[in-house]
């Protein structure tokens, strides 16, 4: 079997939280998560706020030092020591195009910074050429190079962020909610660009978002997270159309579909209550407190991900 581009094995990320003067508790933001991404593939990561999807993305790039588990890039573990080398192959695009760009730097310097850090040019001309090539790639004009970030609209700023991520010619990009701050009509422009760049450059994406329609559209496979754990993963169509886990089913049925006839004839499974606090996680399956099918076994142990055919994996005792 081929080595996947990215392999995540039993990744854990716990944050110590002060809950009293001398008391600290562990917040299990990501708890034993494993998945892999092939070259040129898009894995969508969905879940509600606080489920740990952003933390997965950040831990993957070692922006946070993982508590346990490992990340393999083309079979090679990512560690503190080889991080500079690895960061040339793995990059990130952030959610908020307003705060992720330095307001005191010109576009040229923002995109050029990764080139400077990794010393990817021989002379000034080469640096400039590379920057112009990247700007052209993401649909920015050459005359934008000397402007500052505040002179651009949200969609254009996101393009600058993407050009910056592409500067080191990475094979893998973590996209953390890259379109959720943008207007609908601009979202489509950026989504199309992500798709075009993938075809052109063969990059793989971990596409983190809460907009399930967009994730379904852009992803080859989707992983659904709930309270730090992956509860279901499979191809985008499997997870959307033939979801098995009760959480995925209710999540999918809750998405408002922009199609009046379709959306009104659909049966919605409305979940009761709120997501439990990750500090006081229920025993066993974290979803059992809101699950319609919960039984005694669910309280005892977390169900493992089991294959339900064709790589469609589900973590549930009942279904």
């Amino acid at each position, binding site marked *: 079997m081929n080595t996947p581009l990215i392999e995540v094995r039993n990744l854990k990320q716990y944050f110590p939280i002060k809950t009293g003067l001398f008391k600290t508790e562990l917040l299990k933001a990501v708890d034993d998560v494993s998945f892999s991404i092939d070259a040129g593939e898009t894995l969508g990561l969905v879940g509600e706020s606080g489920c740990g999807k952003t933390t997965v993305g950040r831990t993957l790039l070692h922006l946070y030092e993982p508590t346990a588990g490992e990340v393999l890039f083309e079979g090679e573990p990512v560690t503190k020591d080889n991080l500079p080398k690895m960061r040339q192959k793995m990059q990130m695009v952030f959610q908020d195009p307003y705060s992720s760009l330095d307001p005191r730097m010109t576009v040229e310097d923002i995109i050029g910074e990764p080139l400077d850090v990794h010393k990817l040019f021989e002379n000034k001309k080469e640096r400039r050429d590379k920057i112009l090539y990247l700007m052209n790639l993401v649909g920015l004009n050459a005359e934008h190079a000397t402007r500052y970030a505040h002179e651009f609209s949200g969609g254009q700023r996101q393009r600058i962020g993407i050009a910056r991520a592409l500067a080191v010619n990475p094979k893998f990009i973590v996209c953390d909610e890259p379109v959720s701050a943008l207007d609908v009509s601009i*979202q*489509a422009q950026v989504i*199309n660009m992500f798709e075009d760049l993938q075809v052109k450059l063969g990059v793989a994406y971990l596409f983190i978002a809460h907009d399930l329609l967009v994730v379904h559209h852009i992803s080859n496979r989707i992983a659904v997270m709930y309270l730090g754990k992956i509860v279901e993963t499979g191809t985008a169509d499997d997870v959307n159309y033939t979801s098995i886990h009760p959480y995925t089913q209710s999540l999918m049925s*809750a998405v408002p579909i922009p199609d009046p006839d379709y959306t009104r004839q659909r049966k919605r499974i409305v*979940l009761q209550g709120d997501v439990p606090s990750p500090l006081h996680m229920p025993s066993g399956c974290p979803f059992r407190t809101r699950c319609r099918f919960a039984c005694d076994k669910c309280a005892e142990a977390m169900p493992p991900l089991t294959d339900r055919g064709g790589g469609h994996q589900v973590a549930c005792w009942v279904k």
Partner: protein
Amino acid sequence: MKDEKSLKKEHLLSVQDLHTSFFTDSGEVHAVNGVSFNLDPGEILGIVGESGSGKSVTAYSIMQILASTGKVTGGKILYKGDDLTKWNEKKLSEFRGKCVSIIFQDPMTSLNPVFTIGNQLTEAIKLHTDKRGKDAWDRAVELLTLVGINEPERRMRQYPHEHSGGMRQRVMIAMALACEPDILIADEPTTALDVTIQAQILELIQELQKKLGMAVILVTHDLGVIAELCDNIIVMYGGSICERGTGREIFYNPHHEYTKGLLRSIPDVKNMKERLVPIAGTPINILNLPKGCAFCARCDNCMKICLQEKPMELDINENHKASCWMNVKEAFEGGAR
């Protein structure tokens, strides 16, 4: 939408040629330019648009809660036939809450963190009804039960930070319903919430609307939410209405280039992998509105007249109107044939 009828019947709310501007250092910003619509009892009206389309400003103009730099510069807002833009502050504060209530996008910031939920709820009740003390408290508990909050008595004594986002939005809805208003304006009520919580809140709004028979104006950018809830839809762009009609008409028979573009730029449920067709260009800068159609700079089918004159609103059918020169052109060509 029903012109002959509207002459005879009085609408619950009738907005006529509303103009709202903000007076800023960089000049007058025309946020709303000639918006007209009617609202009848029990109707759910959706106003959809992108940021800067003037959808929220329209809602705030109805409530008369514009920022200090904002002003309604023209048009009328008739509530049961009475123009509320001419009312004084005393009359308006009676009107707000009793006749029209609003819930905002962010349930985190619309509640006061230093007062208990009960304190804030009873305040609204005391202000608008003659209920005092125990009566007001009981009414508040009743309202919390109505919006589906468990253990309302205990929740009343808690502070906003002890509630989740969905809970807070429920409290906001309870507060808005305190005096059984005729109209509930919901300004992006679920944008800050997760999908499963969003589903709960939308269901609640729908249920309460049926139970209490009030009219709802739902302001949002989410076409999915609009499709799910609304009887009638208004699509706004650059401070004007581009298109209005029933939900099915807008989604299945769009007649404005902007609406068409908007629908093409979201994934199609029937064909998820189909490539999206974005609207070119960037959202309109309302500081610098064009002379003609607000959408002309981004429109693929822009004609000479679009740049020079605002399009007139044309009937597509009895449930549907659109303001696009393309329709005028088609009607003209169709007539000539």
